[in-house]
């Protein structure tokens, strides 16, 4: 008769233990995982791990944030594999061009539906970066940090060329490039023919890549304004006023080295150029100005990262709490000090005090446009790169090249 009593005692013990652990579980912490691609010795990850996350965890004691840094060049591959194996984390700091692709795969949560008070956050951020999260009627993320390209130049070189200031219009670009060439300097250096490189010029000339609903490229990419914009650059190149790294980035003198050696004066680049110059070329000076304006104004291209929530996350509420925190003024300001340009409109008040060049970036981002938000963007970009290069290399006219490209892009946008 001892055994049944023993068993009863054991059972009671087990039940008690079970209750105790479940009670503990209810009071225990939720851990959310956040993937990012900051470099491991950079200031961003230090800010995140030593300032921002501790502040968040203090304000939310039942949530722990686990930050996983992944090498930037490999983040996309890791995301894709994680999709295939259903191993995504709760939150990801994703490059903006991947968001439509991930949304199309069905792995992201539509924030405009799943996030309470979404509207208050979406209206607080710049419209250009916000648009990068849009896919098939929903917003699948919110911007986290942004950047754009402005005219970045060396004032000392300009002075030695006898020019008073950077070009503000297309006409000035052309005349100044000719002037610079006479003295053996390339005024403007560009290192590729992809969307990131060429779209600012197309848009500033009043052209477009596609129609407003992103479904067709023919008539837009090969329309007269777009063709004229590319033609202007091709003319500069053919006149020997632009270096050949636009079609030969691998073997030639890079933009930074070129500017430092006073062989080039300017390029279009994001805020990191200033940080790199101050640390690697302390003797050089760098200044910023708006992209030269054409008939369409001074319109640049949006870059940056969005923060997205995955569908398979099991702690969506906690993850959204962290997401909101990252979009708050505190976190945005901390990251701004680490070189990440904030996405909230209210940053216009305090951003230039952190770095003066941010003032120009803020002005530029107000009108900057996103690249076409579509899952096939990488392929579209490859088409642009390859076909526009043919115009520069002279094997096709600009019109032919853009006709080809538009036709192929139509197929990809279907």
């Amino acid at each position, binding site marked *: 008769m001892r055994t049944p009593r023993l068993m009863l005692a054991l059972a009671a013990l087990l039940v008690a233990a079970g209750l105790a652990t479940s009670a503990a579980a209810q009071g225990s912490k939720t851990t959310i*995982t956040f993937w990012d*691609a*900051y*470099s*491991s*010795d*950079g200031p961003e990850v230090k800010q995140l791990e030593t300032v921002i996350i501790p502040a968040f965890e203090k304000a939310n004691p039942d949530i722990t944030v686990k930050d*996983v*840094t*992944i*090498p*930037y*060049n*490999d983040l996309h*591959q*890791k995301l894709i*594999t994680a999709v*295939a*194996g*259903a*191993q995504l*984390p709760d939150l990801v700091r994703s490059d903006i061009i991947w968001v439509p692709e991930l949304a199309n795969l069905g792995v992201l949560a539509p924030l405009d539906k799943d996030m309470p008070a979404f509207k208050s956050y979406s209206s607080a951020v710049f419209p250009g970066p916000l648009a990068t999260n849009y896919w098939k009627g929903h917003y699948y993320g919110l911007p986290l940090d942004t950047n754009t390209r402005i005219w970045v130049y060396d004032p000392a070189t300009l002075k030695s060329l006898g020019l008073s200031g950077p070009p503000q219009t297309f006409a000035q670009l052309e005349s100044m490039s000719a002037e610079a060439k006479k003295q053996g300097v390339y005024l403007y250096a560009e290192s590729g023919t992809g969307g990131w490189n060429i779209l600012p010029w197309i848009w500033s000339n009043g052209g477009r890549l596609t129609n407003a609903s992103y479904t067709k490229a023919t008539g837009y990419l090969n329309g007269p304004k777009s063709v004229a914009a590319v033609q202007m650059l091709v003319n500069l190149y053919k006149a020997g006023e632009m270096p050949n790294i636009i079609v030969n980035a691998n073997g030639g*003198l*890079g933009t*930074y*080295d070129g500017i430092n050696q006073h062989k080039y004066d300017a390029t279009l680049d*994001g805020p*990191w150029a200033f*940080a*790199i110059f101050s*640390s*690697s*070329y302390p003797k050089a000076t760098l200044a910023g100005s708006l992209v030269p304006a054409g008939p369409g104004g001074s319109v640049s291209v949006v870059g940056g990262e969005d923060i997205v929530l995955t569908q398979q996350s099991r702690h969506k509420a906690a993850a959204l709490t962290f997401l909101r925190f990252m979009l708050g003024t505190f976190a945005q300001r901390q990251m701004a000090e680490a070189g990440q340009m904030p996405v909230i409109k209210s940053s216009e008040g305090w951003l230039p005090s952190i770095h003066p060049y941010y003032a120009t970036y803020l002005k530029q981002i107000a009108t900057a446009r996103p690249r076409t938000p579509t899952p096939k963007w990488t392929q579209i970009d490859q088409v642009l790169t390859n076909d526009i290069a043919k115009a520069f290399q002279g094997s096709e006219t600009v019109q032919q090249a853009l006709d080809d490209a538009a036709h192929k892009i139509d197929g990809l946008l279907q």
Partner: protein
Amino acid sequence: MVVGNRRQRRALLGARMLLLSAGVVVLLVPFVYMLATSFKPNTMVLEIPLKFFPRHPTAANYIQAWTSNQFGRYFLNSLIVATATTTAAVLLSAMMAFAFARFRFPGRGLLFGLVLIALMVPTMMMLIPQFLLARHLMLLNSLSGLIVFYTGGNLALNTFLLRSFFQDIPFELEEAMVVDGASSWTRFWRLILPLSRPGLATAAIFTFLASWDEFTWALTIINDPGKYTLPIAIALFQGQHATSWGLVFAASAVAIAPVLILFAIFQRQFVAGITSGAVKA
């Protein structure tokens, strides 16, 4: 192989060393540049034209690389994984190679053919199927997951390599043992393995290097920064817009050290005299 008279030998030796030294110079240029840059102050851009020697050498990159994040931990992880993989892979491959080289059994051709074919399939395409498999086996996010798949991945090459070496060992030596009634394991352990030390050393060196340097699989299955391996650590020094090359080079130089040490130790196995004299008329 030293034969011939004294003067001939001296001249031959001189010629050898001259040729070898010329080769070394060519081979070492990039490595010297890497070392030199690692001792320069950290920069995000490399100067053109290449400058080979730092004006103000500093060890700051090495210090920063080692103390950044959990570099020591990553180093240890790589060491554990590579050592375990090498031991397991060489042992299992030697056993398989022994079976292929010394036994006749039905299916031998087919099975060896499968080993060969596996060598020819690009590993990248297996990434997702292997990932799904690792998930089923609950090996994700673990060093064991690395060890298991690295071992599996090195079996084909090592088996092929060791089979060639085993085939070179004349059977006469084993014949005596077989006649004496020795078990296969005894033949394997007491005769074949000792006789094929150069081959085993080669397999060990290659396997260690392959698992020490492996990046893609480690990146794919590890989600816990504490379990990262060295190649990931080095890749993390590369940023989106700029890379700290001084740090990358310093970290890469540190990463080379264990492999070189292992090589220096194991290459002593490449010494003649093991089988000489054993084969007589």
